């Protein structure tokens, strides 16, 4: 009984101390007003285009209607070392600054097809203000040493954004 009481009292005391720590000095000022919270976070693909094709034909980059999914298709790599490059621009169309917290990938481990990107790593943990942009490229290349006659690969790149604290 005593022990439990001691614990109970300790917890209460801790909570009070925490609150008190923030409010040791206080003074109450009354401000009357009305505030509406409409902060919105929205990052979108704004442009995506196939900017280079060498030994490749009919590559495409299509942004979906929600502008948060980009589909890259490279259907005809003709010989080892052939490649296609897609240039992508992401923009902050929300009302608060954001930052890229991480880049996740899958399908990058194909031994015949090399998938790579540039610039993205430099954006990690940097702030993208409202209307700001991030531009980077994605390259799909048939590996020089590949002996494969026909090869298919699926890959994904995930860009994780958060609001800036």
């Amino acid at each position, binding site marked *: 009984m005593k022990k*439990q009481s001691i614990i*109970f009292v300790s917890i*209460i005391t801790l909570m009070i101390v925490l609150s008190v720590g923030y409010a040791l000095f206080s003074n109450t000022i009354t401000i009357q007003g009305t505030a509406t919270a409409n902060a919105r976070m929205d990052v979108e693909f704004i442009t995506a285009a196939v900017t280079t094709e060498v030994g490749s034909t009919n590559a495409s980059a299509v942004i979906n209607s929600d502008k948060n*999914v980009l589909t890259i298709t490279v259907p005809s790599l003709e010989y080892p070392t*052939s490649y296609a490059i897609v240039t*992508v621009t992401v923009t902050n169309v929300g009302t608060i600054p954001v930052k890229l917290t991480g880049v996740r990938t899958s399908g990058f481990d194909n031994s015949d097809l090399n998938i790579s990107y540039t610039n993205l790593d430099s954006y990690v943990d940097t702030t993208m203000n409202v209307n700001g942009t991030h531009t980077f490229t994605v390259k799909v290349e048939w590996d020089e040493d590949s002996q494969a006659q026909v090869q298919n690969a699926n890959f994904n790149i995930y860009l994780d954004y958060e609001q800036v604290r």
Partner: protein
Amino acid sequence: MEQEKTRKRLYIVTIVLLIYVLSLSIGYAFFSETLEIDGVASTIEYYDGTKLPHTPVTLNNKKGVHFTSNYNDEYSYLTVNGTKLTDGYYYALVDENWNDDTYIITFDKGMLGAFQGKTITYTIAFTNPTVLTYTDGTATTTDGSVLSASNAVSGTSDFSSVSASIDKTSLDPNEQVTLTLTTTIGTIDFTKDSIVKVDVAYKIYPTDNGTRHFYFILKYDSTIDVGNIFDADLLTQCSDKSVTKVNNGYNVTKYSFNCNNYDSIVSDLKSKLEPGVTYRLIRDFQGTQSGVSGSVRLSDGSQLLVNGPYRNGIRHIDFTLTQEQIDSIARIFTYGAQDGSGIFTFIRIYKISD
């Protein structure tokens, strides 16, 4: 009882504390979003062991064809004001087609008639469009001999010799190679087509899954009279009635045979001739020789406007007429053999320059 109450109080406090702590963390990570890129890539069987990647080069911008030939420079027999006419081969060209791994040039075989015993070259070029190096280049020829519609005729060839060469056995990316095909015309069989095929082969470094090929085919078509304006079949309809069509041509059953102004062949030819344009009249004649056997001539009734060559074999003459001369054509003479054995394998008139 007291203990139970205390336990409950502790439990409630803990829950409240937890909610308080959680609400703090939620407040700091409320907005986040993930953009997704989905990709799919595929290689194709470009290197299937036969096709050589290449980009065609147009060598004759004037006529918009890919090839050039010495035919126009060396063997143009016609001169106008002392200047040889060029691109004469163009008027005998039926088709050129550069598709996938094969380039085919097709000519009216009649043009060969002027070149028996002569050596004609054809030149084409292409570039290496890849980022890889081509090595061990070769060019080998296959003489298709003389081909019938379905069978090759062994032991007979229109070409006494054929050869091909490339000026680069190694080809770097974007580099151009020139292929030259050299043919010497032999004894021509105008009743059949003839084909020469060049196989250009390279290895590709570093992938080198085998040798890749490109094919250049030169074809002389015996069935097409490109631009021929002389309808030899109409000879059989002339009022003189001395020409009959036979399996291997037209048999002129007497020495001198005339088609006159009222015969359709005369008006037909006059309607097609253009003033100031240069034409080639070419024919192949076989028969017992006498006088001007084998000659084909155009006359205005009193003088010759075109005096075609005589004697056996393939012979030709080039001519240009004014409108007045065209309008005055009144007679077409064809000279056979005295014994009625003379046969024209063909008689053609076609444009060789504008």
